């Protein structure tokens, strides 16, 4: 059984059929082909699947797909394009914030939510904002520097 969902995805309206027990993460990856959002644990512990729901960062592995009906979802694919990178994407590339890259999409979305709320965050505020996003490669420092550089 599938239900039909209508919501705004990366600023565009979409209408899609989905089994009601699917998570938003699965919907994005398997139905909508948006594989930029990653699954690192499936239980909301690692933050790799972070997307923005009405501007708030959420673990898309914990959100049932029907919950997004009528709402606004943003994923890494909506952030910027090859031709025109979002300032955070550019800053991540320039500051060495990307190693294996698996945490990167989720990290970018958490950072975007932070900067929209707080355009000039302190180091402590950045730490807090990305504390739900695990990164095993970088030790976070260059990620924090990349976010800070955009805030300046």
């Amino acid at each position, binding site marked *: 059984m599938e239900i039909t969902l209508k919501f705004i995805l990366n600023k565009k309206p979409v209408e899609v059929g989905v089994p009601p027990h699917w998570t938003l993460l699965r919907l994005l990856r398997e139905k909508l082909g948006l594989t930029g959002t990653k699954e*690192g644990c499936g239980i909301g512990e690692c933050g790799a699947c972070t997307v923005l729901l009405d501007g708030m960062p959420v673990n898309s592995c914990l959100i049932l797909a029907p919950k997004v009906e009528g709402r606004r979802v943003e994923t890494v694919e909506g952030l910027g394009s090859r031709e025109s990178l979002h300032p955070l994407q550019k800053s991540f590339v320039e500051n060495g914030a990307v190693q294996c890259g698996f945490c990167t*999409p989720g990290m970018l979305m958490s950072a975007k939510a932070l900067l929209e709320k707080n355009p000039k965050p302190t180091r402590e505020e950045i730490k807090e904002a990305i504390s739900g996003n695990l990164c*095993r*490669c970088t*030790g976070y420092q260059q990620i924090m520097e990349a976010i800070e550089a955009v805030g300046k």
Partner: protein
Amino acid sequence: MKKIGVNVLKLDALEKVLGASKYGGDYSFTDLLHLKVVRSNRPHAKIIKVELEEALKVKGVERIFTANDIPGRNLVGIIQKDQPVLNLDRVRYVGDPIALIAARSIEAAEEASQKVNVIYEELPPIFSPEEALQPFAPLIHEKGNLLIEFNIIKGDIQKGFKEAEVIVEKTYTTTWVDHAYLEPDGGIAFWDENGRLTIICPTQNVHYDQREVASFLGLPLEEVRIIQASTGGAFGGRLDITIQCFLALAAFHLKKPVKIVYSREEVFQVISKRHPLKIHYRSGAREDGTLTAVEVDILGDTGAYASYGTTVAIRAAVHATGPYEVPHVKVRSRMAYTNNPWSGAMRGFGVPQIAFAHESQMDLLAQTLKMDPIEIRKKNALRVGSETATSQTLIASVGIGETLERIKEWRDKVSCLKEDPERPYVRRGIGIGSMWYGIGNTGIANPSTARIELNPRGEVKLYIGVADIGQGSDIVLLQIASESLGTELGEIQLIRADTSLTPDAGATSASRQTYITGNAILRAIKNLKEEVIKEASHLLNENEGDLFIEDGEVKHRQKLCLAIPLQEVAIRAKKTIRGEGIFNPETTRLDPDTGQGIPYATYAFATHLAEVEVDIDTGRVKVLRVIACHDVGKVIHPKNVIGQIIGGVAMGVGFALMEEYIPGQTVSFVNYLVPTSKDVPEVIPILVEDNEPSGPFGAKGVGEPALIPSAPAILNAIADAIGERIYHLPANLERVLEAAQKSKQR
């Protein structure tokens, strides 16, 4: 040098920030079958029967494979082939694979996996290496439970201890650590249009995977193609076979594309771990701090299978003295099979564990002798001309002394108030940790081959088998090629980590790719230039001896206006000009009785200083700052090196304070803690560039060295803060609290 020592943009970063980079689990086909592995829930048992009937009835199940379906050799393993891909009659740990389900949906595969009924006959399990080595212990493998015993004997250990005026003797233990790479293993397999069974998956070594899969299927090598997907971290966990053979088996029989993605729980259960080591360490020194003798006994738990157990036993032994000159050395290093989860390669291959021991010993000696911990290290530090524990004379690039010097400057600036009047429950401390690390495999051949070509379309193509696992080898190796060729970075196309296109570079492990493949590239380019000169001499009707190559152009010694870009030569010659280079570091086999020889061509060195704050009421340790000074040889890409160091420190914080895998209990990040942004200290990296004459432009390596000194420095800082030492990793809340209370009682 224009391309070396500069921060150029990392090639893969753009795709990754766009979310466009494809990891194993991101690949898909429309008529895909999903795989699920059925695993043992017993640590040690005979398999009496595997009942598949109920599972086969599940709607959507296409087929269920067992060991009987394997056409080739059902054993894999990097050194000893002792690990069945699917077990036929025996299981050796909880998680051992028994059957493989292929179904049209993930749900069907999951459901069927619950319905496979395995009838076991229990065998007595063994959960510690001590038990495993008891006489008459049940055998986990036919050849016995002792995987390896490796010894180092240098000088006369008794004489060494006779000369000692102080002796420190302690036992240190470490536990299982999970790589916790963020991407759960996932990939696909299919038959390509050329009739090759093709697998796209995360890996650290495509050519090893190819050899294992080919012999597992009984196919010729060239009929198996392995392509590295974007790899979401690895740290050694992707050196062994993970999902490759499951994908191969299903695609081989079903002739359809297949996909597997592990859950995080499965990753925790079945991927290799860092070896738990028990280290008994005895050091002797004169009153002035000079080391006279080091005697070490190491016993490790390799779990159910050998994997890299042998490597870890040998590498830990070879590095057991630390970066110090010791005249009399005796090390016995053993690794035993148990029915615990299997341990394998993890960033440092036993050296992070042994460094915890040798650096604790150095601080204990300093304390006993009332010496400055940095001074005692400096006094004994290896230098050019020193002899190591394997009697290798170091001839160049021994930067340990300089790292100590630079850290001393910092230490003298750090005024550390032990107590905080505002917070009476807080104690602060600082600690030093040093390390050395041999680049490349230990005393065995580990060559890399690189190929470069100029084609008639004017393209320059560099073919390397190196798996970039996020650390940035792609860009570093391109920098080396571009500098040597005299072309711009953007002019070289990189083709990498695909067995059907690239030559064998060996594994991305042992911090070896910059040094070894970097050198292979230099040789390939030298070879290419010779071929270009031959071709140009023919085209231009000039003597080969009059032509030379500079800044990417063929030039003439007399005719100064002649300058033809290299690419132009291939275009005009209407043919592809190739260069190939092989590099194998100069090592010797270690003597099987005494461990003497030349295990590595070069070593990296480092010293970290950690500042910590300990809450003596809760046991909570906060690492405030780590100054991380590394001799990596010439730095090719500063930002990448710094990225490795900062990331290594974070992993070191985890190793020191929180990471503890408990078999049967650890299933998720809820009960396996890895450092978050709030747990990591500020890191100040300092680069010492003691150029290695045999390295590409003087480079050595940094991947594993980045991690190694952090935990020792943190543990020494905790001891400094609370006046009581912890001998078991991790120094978690309970252990720190216990130590703090012991200290209070004194």
